[in-house]
């Protein structure tokens, strides 16, 4: 059963520390998205990639967040330095863009980040 895999599932860290979240998209998918979910803001799009190239990262705070896809099986989201306001659940999602495709995304179970 193909699924998007995210690590870590839970992370507690102290303000100022670097945090790296990892995502393995579904094999064969050509788009990867990073979302952040908080009670206050709901789901926010941070960044997305197509064929490993970043298409849009306008939702990310540029000074501290970075997103990369070193290869087709790994996407990373890094926060350095982390701040308490970064506490949230971060979701990775992948999909397949194709002619006539519906555009649906498949989500991982999320990485819950708590910054103290």
């Amino acid at each position: 059963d193909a699924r998007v895999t995210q690590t870590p599932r839970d992370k507690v860290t102290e303000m100022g520390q670097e945090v790296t979240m990892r995502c393995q998209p579904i094999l064969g998918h050509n788009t990867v998205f990073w979302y952040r979910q908080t009670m206050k803001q709901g789901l926010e799009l941070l960044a997305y990639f197509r064929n490993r190239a970043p298409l849009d990262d306008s939702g990310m705070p540029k000074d501290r967040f970075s997103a990369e896809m070193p290869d087709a099986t790994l996407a990373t989201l890094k926060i350095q330095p982390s701040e308490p306001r970064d506490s949230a659940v971060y979701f990775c999602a992948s999909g397949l863009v194709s002619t006539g495709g519906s555009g649906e995304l498949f989500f991982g179970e999320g990485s819950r980040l708590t910054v103290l």
Partner: protein
Amino acid sequence: AQSVTQLDSHVSVSEGTPVLLRCNYSSSYSPSLFWYVQHPNKGLQLLLKYTSAATLVKGINGFEAEFKKSETSFHLTKPSAHMSDAAEYFCVVSADGGATNKLIFGTGTLLAVQP
């Protein structure tokens, strides 16, 4: 620009009674519409999708949704609620008709199911 509006932030039903979660959409072209469900501490799971084929779409777990262009609505229904249906439900529209998988999420409806 594409958008969705979920008309209720909270819905409470009794087990065994029908479920209706309301969603209106705005789109400058024929939309791709979805309903996703999120159970506590879980990721989002696709319930069903509409992509300009049949207007009545059947999904998993007995849910279905009807696309009504005249009303710009895509309401989610289920004939009989089960305790396991308690979750948050998101109405979603494709930002660009499926060209990039970019999705626009509604604010969510929290469904409570009373025994």
